């Protein structure tokens, strides 16, 4: 039995141990640098790989949702499709509009990709597996995340096209608006954990009562916070139904209309990497990070749980994309400022009350009501204000 436990621990920590073993061969002076490289390189390899797999999963999943096969021509079951896509984008001509601001046009995709990679610095993807355990990890995450807005605007502005300009305008408005509920939704967790460190937040959730974990999502404010966070995250990562900045059918491809070849692929990748990062943050904040969903499953390596949760969230993203039409700009803004913002503020209040109420069912009841009733009232009110309803039709014989 103890052997099994040791084996499980070994498996769980195998990457950490391997890193330390490798560092043992490095002179002491170079160790910090080597340590950083050894932490960063796997991230730079694993997440683009995940991106490749996700593009395939997305196309296959959308295909199945739409009653098609999806890509199945390259390799067995189309598994090599991402490689074919990569080769295609690499070999395509890189077209830069003659009037474009060349330097900015060139820098925008690089900035987007590097910004989205920087997010991973504070994401614990397994037990003891985080690049830097910053005291202000969550703050760092959102600060770096807002660099992506800059990249998007650079792309839209430098292309000197009307469509990209419209796309950039939309992107800026949307991303800044949704940053507010995104941050506010995560503050409830910080209040509860009393720390901005992502590692501390996960450690707090990685304990169990019986078989049940202490994930924040299993509290009323945590659940509301999670849903609000995910909605805002969808908007932040420009995913359907909030994909207005690229709004395919309206403004061609939005801010990256004028990009082609590998720069286009970089944009594509940056978006996905950013989406993984925000999903990873949602997992860290609400879904217990790398901790197992049941105590008896804790023997499975921690990084497995992180990626499993990530894939589930990606699947939900794909599912939503396959179902919903896109919102319009003003509606998107209304949602952010009239629904998301009040709800996140209320949620803050609820979290505070939860903190000061004694343990027990009364706390659950009060907090659930505090979240659910305003949500229903607010949404009813908004729906009523706009008078949306299924019309009735009469017939002429």
């Amino acid at each position, binding site marked *: 039995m103890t052997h099994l436990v040791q084996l499980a621990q070994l498996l769980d920590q195998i990457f950490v141990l391997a890193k330390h073993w490798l560092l043992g061969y490095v002179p002491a002076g170079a160790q910090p640098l080597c340590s950083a490289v050894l932490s960063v390189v796997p991230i730079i390899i694993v997440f683009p790989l995940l991106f490749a797999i996700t593009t395939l999963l997305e196309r296959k999943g959308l295909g199945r*949702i739409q009653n*098609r*096969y999806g890509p199945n021509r390259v390799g067995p079951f189309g598994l090599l499709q991402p490689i074919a896509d990569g080769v295609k984008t690499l070999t395509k001509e890189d077209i830069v509009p003659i009037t474009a601001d060349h330097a900015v046009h060139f820098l925008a995709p690089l900035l987007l990709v590097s910004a989205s990679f920087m997010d991973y610095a504070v994401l614990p993807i397994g037990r003891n597996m985080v690049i830097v355990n910053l005291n202000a990890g969550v703050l760092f995450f959102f600060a770096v995340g807002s660099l992506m807005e800059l990249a998007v605007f650079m792309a839209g502005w430098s292309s000197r096209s009307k469509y990209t300009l419209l796309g950039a305008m939309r992107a800026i408005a949307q991303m800044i608006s949704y940053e507010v509920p995104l941050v506010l939704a995560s503050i409830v967790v910080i209040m509860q954990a009393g720390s901005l460190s992502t590692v501390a937040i996960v450690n707090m959730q990685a304990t169990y009562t019986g078989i049940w974990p202490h994930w924040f999502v299993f509290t009323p404010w945590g659940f509301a916070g999670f849903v609000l966070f995910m909605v805002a995250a969808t908007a932040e990562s420009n995913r359907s139904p909030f994909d207005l900045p690229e709004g395919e059918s309206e403004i061609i491809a939005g801010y990256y209309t004028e990009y082609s070849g590998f720069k286009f692929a970089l944009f594509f990748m940056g978006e996905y990497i950013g989406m993984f990062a925000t999903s990873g943050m949602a997992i860290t904040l609400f879904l217990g990070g790398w901790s197992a969903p049941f105590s008896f499953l804790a023997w499975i390596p921690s990084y497995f749980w992180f990626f499993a949760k990530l894939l589930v969230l990606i699947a939900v993203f794909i599912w939503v994309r396959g179902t*919903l039409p896109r919102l319009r700009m003003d509606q998107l803004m209304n949602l952010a400022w009239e629904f998301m913002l009040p709800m996140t503020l209320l949620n803050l209040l609820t979290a505070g009350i939860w903190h000061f109420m004694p343990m027990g069912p009364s706390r659950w009841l009060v907090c659930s009501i505090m979240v659910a009733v305003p949500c229903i009232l607010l949404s009813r009110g908004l*729906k009523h204000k706009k008078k949306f309803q299924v019309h009735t039709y009469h017939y002429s014989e």
Partner: protein
Amino acid sequence: MVGEGILKGMAETARNFFGSFVSKDRLTTVQYPEQRELRIEAARDFPFLVYDGADWHQGMRCVACQICEKECPPKCIFIEKSKDKKPDANGKPQFYPAVFNIDISVCMSCQICVEVCPFDAIKMDVDYDLSTDDRFGGLLLNKQRLSKSNEYYRKIHPTEASAVDARLAGERARQEAKAKTAAEARLTTTAVQPASGEPR
């Protein structure tokens, strides 16, 4: 409640997602080069010329009357009439097309040539794997490439072909009967020698 319609829609797409794995009715894609749909008898794409017997030149039904050339809406048929005559399947001397070209990159598969042909000489093919990079060699079909046997016609359009065959056989029988009576009449009137050049 807001979100109800969205959830309904999500349920519907989920149903389709799982349905596509179990129900043939939902996943209808035919994966083309490996799988092919059954040939539909009525299908049509481009015209071909029918010949009887074994030799395409000898058995060609077309008599170069040029009706199809005239009636073709996009004018994709080009015919030159022969100077001499050759015996057709019934042995009757007929003109034949010296040149018969169909430009299938212009043809719009409307089947009007088939409808107007009084000799059942031109019919619609069902062969659709025709893409080529050779504009003239591949898509401008000449007489020889256009000619296909009556057996082939029977294979691709069985119902239609049997009706045509029956009609042609009827005509042939009528013709033979007529020839016979004419010959008999000649016999009775002259009774000198059998009519020369009687076919077959």
